[in-house]
């Protein structure tokens, strides 16, 4: 069986990179004493994957790990043992036992929702004000960083939803194995729309990861 578990990456540890988060989860699983499965081979490691790597500097409210278990374990026991074994900054809030054949999370991932807290109030007002204008455009160009260069791309089709409240901008953006609109790209495009030249300081919190149901609507990935 596999266990899909929703966990938090708190604000305090948001600068911890994905590799370190992975290692922390591995060690947490080892501390928990839960019957987790290990890979075969020379350097065995725990079979745990993540729905999506969260960038360094971003917090995560509902990140998802996918752990292969050696024996059956109830969701409640999994949660209880893991929360004792994980630091305060990485607590779990939900677990769901699934079948071994359940599709890989990464393959089902379609979108992510973000809460972007704009630190400067004046900037927040300008950015928020620019949302309708930007959303009315046919195309919205942004720069996408590839390994070697900056590439121009159209992010308009990658935006599912864009709203604002106070200094928060809420965005649901495409995130699949093949393409993604990162929050930085969105804010860069929005800054241009708003005529902002100074750099925007913001706190990025990824609040959810989504897949699509049979009807094509977004639903939380862990509920698929």
């Amino acid at each position, binding site marked *: 069986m596999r266990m899909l578990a929703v966990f938090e990456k*708190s*604000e*305090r*540890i948001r*600068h*911890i*990179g994905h590799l*370190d*988060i992975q*290692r*922390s989860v*591995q*060690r*947490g*699983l*080892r*501390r928990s*004493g839960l019957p987790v499965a*290990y890979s075969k081979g020379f350097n*065995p490691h725990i079979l745990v994957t993540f729905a999506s790597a969260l960038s360094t*500097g971003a917090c995560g409210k509902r990140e998802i790990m996918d752990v292969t278990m050696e024996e059956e374990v109830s969701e409640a026991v999994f949660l209880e043992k893991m929360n004792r*074994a*994980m*630091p*305060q*900054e990485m607590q779990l809030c939900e677990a769901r036992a699934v079948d071994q054949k359940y599709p890989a999370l990464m393959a089902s991932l379609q979108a992510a929702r973000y809460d972007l807290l704009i630190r400067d109030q004046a900037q927040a007002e300008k950015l928020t004000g620019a949302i309708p204008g930007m959303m009315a455009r046919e195309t919205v160009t942004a720069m996408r960083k590839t390994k070697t260069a900056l590439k121009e791309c159209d992010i308009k089709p990658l935006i599912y939803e864009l709203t604002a409240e106070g200094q928060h901008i809420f965005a649901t953006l495409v995130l699949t194995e093949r393409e993604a609109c990162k929050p930085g790209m969105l804010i860069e495009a929005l800054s241009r729309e708003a005529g902002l030249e100074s750099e925007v*300081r913001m*706190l990025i919190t990824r609040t959810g990861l989504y897949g699509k149901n049979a009807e094509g609507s977004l639903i939380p990935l862990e509920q698929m």
Partner: protein
Amino acid sequence: MELNDKIEKILEKVQKAPRYTGGEMNTAVKAWDDCPLHFGFCFPDTYEVGMSHLGLKILYGLINNESWSLCERFFMPWTDMIALMEEENLPLLSMESRRPLNAFDVVGFTLQYEMSFTNILAMLKMGGIPLESRERSETDPIVVAGGPCAFNPEPLADFIDAFMIGDGEDVMTELNRVILERKEKGLSREECLKSLAKLEGVYVPSLYDVTYNEDGTVAAVTPKCAEVPSVIRKRVVADLNNTYYPEKIPVPYTEVIFDRIMLEIMRGCTRGCRFCQAGILYRPVRERSMEKLIDLAEKLVGATGYEEISLSSLSSGDYSCLPELIRELMKRLKDKRVSISLPSLRIDSVLKESLEETQQVKKTSLTFAPEAGTQRMRDVINKGVTEKDLLEKVRDAFEGGWSSVKLYFMSGLPTETDADLDGIADLARKVIAEYFNVPKTQRAKGLRVTVSVSVFVPKPFTPFQWAAQDTVEENLRKQEHLKQVLNIKGVTFHWHEPYVSFLEACFARGDRRMGKVLRTAYEKGCILDGWNETFRYDLWMEAFKECGLDPAFYANRERPADEILPWDHIDCGVTKDFFRREKEKSDRAETTKDCRKGCNGCGLQRWKGVCSYANAGSV
């Protein structure tokens, strides 16, 4: 809230933010108001270095284990962080509750190496505490320090209120009690320091006067009042099985230098290598029992989730039932997929059996420390290892499937000639030959021999405490020579900077006047001197000049046998007389046997029943 905003702002800009975030697993966050005594544990180097240090984990656990005291950690920020903190007007903050250093009742520094001394000043300054003891007021914390460099406390005497000499476990709690009493009864700083000075193993430098001769040597160190001892005797924990050892340790998010469980299997060393200060300071040898170690290992694996345990001590191969211990640990931990490593293998104590067992889980490169290239030189330093021993162990390793070997040496040892340096290259060649002697089908591919040569630094409390260090120029010449003779296929040669070693030598055997040099260098901008990229030799030399002191007086001068040494008022357990005898034997290239083969009368016999090898009748 404003504080956290500022922190968040600078963490967005700083390099390697994870070293400043805190919130790691097993970092106790005790409620501030529930604990009457607040201890700020300062490691005067970066997070990655400090979190690799066993002493920090022991004392952190020990202080937090007491209901009435809490301990939070402080590390030295990197230069970019310091600049950002200054910009935002932020003080040095604890990793746990983000409180400034001067909010703590006690501030404790661990003194692991001399080149971290400027970091102490930097951390005090950033923490809002006056640098010098005499500048501190009633509201400032008591600043204490311990660790190996506390044995010659004089260069730091101006800055540290009280030193803890020797094993820290017992004295730590006693010291905290005295400081708690000060807080509760509102005693003055002076009264508190006087009470501290009465604790065994505690040295309060401000209660002692130092006078000098005309030639700059020490004339006398005398107590200012009758209540304090004229000689400060180090603390010794009698039984490691009954002393505190943490059952859970912090687990950093980010990788640190030693990112594993360190299981201290014993303390001390019986070998008596004459260059080795640690081998003296941690005497006598005390072993933890196998039962205790296995229990600790299982608890620590459960509490940390670490994948690796290293058995740590100065000479793990000497642990009396090492093969049994390794076998038992492996049996118990195999299912948990924990590998076991032995870091300080000595070439004459590696058991083939245990070699094969460590390999069963994980194979890393093997380290050997012959320390010197010729037998004569090894006899001078009493490194009881022969070429035959070394080559046998190397052959065992190559046959056992290792292909990577590290060899550690020192240059600049007393009486060394170029022939001794050439011996290093000869030895490297013989090691390579051993590899090729193993049939091709039986040996692992990719031979790698790394030869590391460090510059010898004479240390206090060793038979070489009177010796002159080679000058920087001479060391540079030797380095060139080594480069030429070690230009051998398959050999990688590493060399340590002689400039840093020169300064290290000044502080290692420095007197109280060195405090002025330290402060001057710090004020000129010297910090993080242990790091190549921040070490400023030029500023240090300026500082010496301005203070009217000659570094060569400390580093390159041979001391006469009857000179009063700046650390003579500290009793490290081993007597000056023993060092004198050892020095004389060293001059004759005569060796001294391992204590396990009979008591050499080093002085530890004065602690009744603590040294298992002591002969009470010996001198």
